[in-house]
């Protein structure tokens, strides 16, 4: 399910279910496209039917264009895609074996399954041979391993190898694909003895061709990601809030909430560096350094809490930076501890009582601070929070599939 699982759109437990549904759809489309017919498949080698080449080229350019467009729109994170490593020699030998098997049997592995399912006996024999081959390879893997892993180039991209821009490569791929579509149609016409005027290349293909070229040009023109996203907050709104100090939470409020966990709805986020966090943090706080605040996962983590988030650092500089970045990225219920830890500690532990008359509210506040001071010193707040401590969230560990998985 590609990046949908790591991004949290799909529960990893449903992975196999989605694989099943997609597999059904894929099989149906293959069968309806005539890919259960070995004559049609083998036609590419004899020149009378190039549908296989066109389908694979179409799939490649559709996926490439879709991936780049979706990446631009923020629906897919390109950087999370797993790229199969390239083992040069096994790819070459495997390619020769597969090509030989394809021309001999008339199927590739995926299409043989489709044909076997609709009852074709030759396909069933092909699948049986395929299974024997898999079993043989697995049983003697140690002997095959040196060849299997030889020529390890890592996860390489063709455009990197050619020292090309990714978007230009996709554009050229589209042009090559469209040229291949036209040329193969002409070859088919010739091999099948069709007159050019009755040929297979129809005018209605002009539209889709232009469409593909248009999308490829669009990708060339678009930046990697939009400079501003539709869900972001505009700068003037942020500035107004910051100028009015709307983001600040005072030390009193935090002290009260730390001492009354039932009323503490804040997600406390310590934005200082790792060492400072390891040395000390507020009870129940989680750690996200300012520089990593926009990393994928953290924003989602804070959003999913559905609770107000309070950032704090030593003072309020780093916390305000974190606040501004997340405020721009669309989060609303986020705040900054005014004066940071230093301000909090000064207010609770060191601020001296000013001489003079106190009204009722001021007396109450002074009594509260005295009580808070004692409670913090005795560890009362930490004890209360620790009793309720629980993991905030666990993001699923994704393991790269073993080398060599995938294929048609």
């Amino acid at each position, binding site marked *: 399910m590609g990046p949908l699982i790591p991004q949290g759109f799909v529960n990893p437990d449903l992975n196999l279910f989605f694989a099943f549904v997609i597999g059904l759809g894929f099989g149906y489309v293959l069968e309806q496209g005539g890919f259960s017919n070995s004559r049609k498949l083998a036609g590419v080698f004899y020149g009378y039917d190039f549908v296989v080449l066109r389908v694979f080229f179409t799939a490649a350019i559709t996926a490439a264009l879709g991936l780049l467009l979706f990446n631009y729109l923020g629906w897919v994170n390109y950087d999370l895609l797993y790229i199969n490593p390239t083992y040069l020699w096994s790819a070459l030998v495997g390619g020769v074996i597969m090509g030989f098997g394809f021309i001999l049997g008339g199927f590739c592995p995926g299409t043989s399954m489709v044909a076997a399912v609709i009852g074709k006996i030759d396909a069933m024999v092909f699948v049986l041979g395929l299974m024997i081959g898999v079993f043989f390879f697995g049983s003697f893997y140690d002997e095959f391993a040196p060849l299997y892993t030889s020529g390890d180039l890592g996860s390489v991209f063709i455009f990197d190898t050619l020292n090309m821009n990714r978007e230009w490569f996709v554009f050229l791929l589209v042009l090559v694909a469209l040229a291949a579509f036209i040329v193969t149609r002409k070859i088919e016409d010739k091999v099948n003895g069709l007159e050019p005027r009755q040929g297979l290349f129809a005018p*209605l*293909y002009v539209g889709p061709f232009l469409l593909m070229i248009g999308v490829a040009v669009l990708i060339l023109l678009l930046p990697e990601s939009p400079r501003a996203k539709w869900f972001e907050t505009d700068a003037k709104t942020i500035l107004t809030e910051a100028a009015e100090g709307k983001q600040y939470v005072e030390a009193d409020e935090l002290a009260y909430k730390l001492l009354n966990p039932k009323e503490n709805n804040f997600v406390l986020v310590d934005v200082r560096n790792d060492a400072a966090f390891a040395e*000390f943090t507020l009870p129940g706080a989680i750690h*996200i350094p300012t520089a990593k605040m926009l990393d994928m996962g953290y924003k989602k983590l804070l959003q999913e809490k559905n609770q107000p988030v309070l950032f704090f650092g030593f003072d309020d500089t780093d916390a305000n*930076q974190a606040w501004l*970045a997340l405020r721009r990225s669309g989060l609303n219920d986020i705040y900054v501890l005014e004066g940071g830890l230093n301000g909090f500690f000064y207010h609770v532990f060191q601020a001296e009582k000013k001489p003079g008359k106190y009204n009722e509210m001021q007396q109450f506040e002074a009594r509260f601070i005295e009580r808070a001071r004692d409670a*913090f010193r005795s560890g009362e707040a930490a004890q209360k929070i620790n009793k309720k401590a*629980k993991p905030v969230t666990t993001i699923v560990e994704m393991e790269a599939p073993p080398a060599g998985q995938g294929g048609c």
Partner: protein
Amino acid sequence: MNTINDKMLANAALLFVLALVFVILVQWLLAPSYSLTNKAVLEQTANENILIKPQQLKAMQADQSLKAFTLLDLSGKLKSKDAFGAVLTVPFADLLDSDQLKTIKKADQLLVVGDKESEALMAVQLLMAKGVTNITALANDAAFTDQVLGQELQAEFYDAHAEKARFDYGRFLKATGNGQQKAAKQTEVPGAVKVVAAAGGC
């Protein structure tokens, strides 16, 4: 039949791409006006070099390079204006007014100072996002900048005014079992590859 199928496929593809283009257009219309992505701004402003430290400021004053800078004073309280090439006084709240922004964008190299360091850095973040380049902030506030520029100060003085722990927090607030125990679990980025078991909860 084939022709009908081809036509349907072509129309479906056209519709899909048009829908995508429409989504891009709508998102573009809805998006606020920024010249730099949020991530790019944070990468630059979270960098230590975004702040001119007092020692650096003093050195720049000594070699006269400070004269090449335009100071953007958000506080309106800075007295040592002569040290800079030019001074723009813009209240923080008016920072993004179009006229002010035009004037700010004309400056070659900008130094920002405010009532608080955080205010100056927020201004840098917002101005960078709006396309202002060559911009840095002065550490601490306007009053401190005056002190730095006005007299010879010891290194200890600079150090005492940097953002750092000013208390032995653990001695005042017993918070056993939070920072130290959870630090190892907290520091990884959940880039969908690592496990993040962010402990806590309020």
